[in-house]
């Protein structure tokens, strides 16, 4: 097997007495969509933050394209081609949509004009074409999610970390955004996504990791993972797993 683009080995994170992530390992193969799922409080966002350089792990290592990137700061990782979105959207509220995206585009374009032109292009691609001159603060939730995507895409990443881009969207909005994510994959960008919307996980991802109480408890193709009693138990409790097995 070829070396995966991203490989996380036995990464742990401790906050005081709480072991938020406990020796978790996962990998994301190039040009694929890999999903990370798990119940609330499982440590998914913490694991993400360690991959993206926002938190330093207490143990373990993160490798990207064959290089050890453990503990590198986020801006250095962005330069290497790792971009992330935030679960709680973080727009530059005072700036217009184009200006927001241009901050990402500046990573590859020094000149203001080139960055703005690239920003407009990416904005149209994610479906923000009509809102480019609006202040980001006036966007709807779905608009803000698209803006998160656009800013990250503008950095021209090889690996895109998506933290619940579909959360808070209604079913019709989800139907609109799913093809956008597929389009990103089609451009050859590897995606690792945290997602709660199972319908999207099942339809988009090829490999799923399940994190519960800081540990990876299962992994595999989405259908196999969804049927795994351990996973059902983690989500619904012990009784439910037994019930599911009997039916």
């Amino acid at each position, binding site marked *: 097997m070829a070396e995966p683009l991203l490989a996380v080995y036995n990464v742990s994170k401790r906050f005081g007495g709480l072991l938020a992530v406990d020796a978790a390992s996962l990998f994301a193969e190039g040009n694929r969509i890999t999903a990370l799922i798990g119940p609330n409080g499982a440590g998914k966002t913490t694991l993400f933050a360690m991959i993206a350089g926002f938190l330093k792990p207490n143990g373990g290592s993160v490798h990207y394209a064959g290089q050890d990137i453990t503990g590198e700061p986020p801006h250095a990782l962005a330069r290497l081609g790792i971009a992330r979105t935030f679960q709680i959207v973080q727009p*530059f509220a*005072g700036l217009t949509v184009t200006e927001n995206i241009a901050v990402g585009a500046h990573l590859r374009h020094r000149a203001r004009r080139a960055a703005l032109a690239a920003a407009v292009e990416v904005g149209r691609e994610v479906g923000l074409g009509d809102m480019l001159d609006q202040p980001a603060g006036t966007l*709807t939730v779905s608009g803000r999610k698209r803006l998160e995507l656009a800013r*990250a895409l503008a950095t021209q990443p090889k690996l895109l970390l998506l933290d619940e881009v579909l959360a808070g969207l209604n079913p019709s909005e989800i139907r609109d955004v799913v093809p956008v994510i597929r389009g990103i994959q089609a451009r050859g960008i590897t995606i690792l996504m945290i997602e709660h919307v199972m319908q999207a996980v099942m339809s988009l991802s090829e490999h799923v990791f399940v994190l519960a109480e800081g540990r990876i408890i299962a992994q595999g193709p989405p259908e196999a993972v969804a049927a795994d009693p351990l996973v059902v138990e983690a989500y619904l409790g012990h009784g439910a797993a037994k019930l599911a097995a009997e039916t």
Partner: protein
Amino acid sequence: MTRLSTIALVIAALAAVPLVTQSNTVLNFLVVALLIALAGQGWNILGGYGGQYSFGHAAFFGTGAYVTAILQVRYGLNAWPGCALGIAAGALLGAAIGALTFRSGLRGSYFALVTLAFAEVLRIIASVAPITGAGVGTLVKLDLRWEAFQFQSRAIFYWVILALVAVSLVIAWLVERSRFGAYLIAVRENEDAARALGVDATRVKLGAMTLSAAITAAAGCFYTQYFLFLDAGIAYGPWISVEALLTAIIGGVGTVLGPLLGALVVKSLGEAARLVTGDAPGLDLVIYGAVLVLVVWFAPRGLMGLVADVRAPVRRPSRIAQEATHG
């Protein structure tokens, strides 16, 4: 975004003032207002565009002023290179304080307090150190020749400070149109999001602080050459920290023309108050306080924000329209 032609127009209009009036009172008033505008523009680069509110820009003003004065008085250096070194010293101090504060992750009110502390420490040192003349202060010898960076005519002094202000406006204009400026504003708006997009937040803030300190130090250099006297209270006193941030906030933070407009308005108000009440000490400070409260309350984006609203009322799509297009 302010256009270059607007800047040129404003500077040209101000440059014409000495042609209309030779009144020393008017020119002196305008020189002081422009001096504050320059210090305020320095503050604006870091505070306005970068969102890092410093309460201690006196540290840079005073360093620019003292280095200019001491090099002339004690080392016999000419005023022109003295001034250049004063600006360099201010920039260096800005970089040093920035490195200490930003590297340790100080943000918001912690950053404000630490900058205030640096300025106060420098004021106390300057008030006892022999090299600054301690309590007596430093007097620069009167030598009204342009070689000594002193001018017989007040109008020339006025044009010199106006030229410095013009340079500071162009610097702000360039910042608005550069990657550095885009990164700086991104850090102001949301530091974590900026870092995720490849912005080295510490480096950007450090660059802004260095530039900011250099501009405010230039105001200090000019102060020395214009008034020819310094003591610790003038150079490092809280007055200049307060005036630098007030003019920028009242004029409009993160705008090219805000500090200039703010300085002219605030200084005019102070002068008007003095005319009405006689020389009641501290009254100008009361006025500043009242104006600041009014501006923050009614025009949080400052006078430039009011100007923008009058010229192009913001069209906010109504909630219903938004839901109709997205729902």
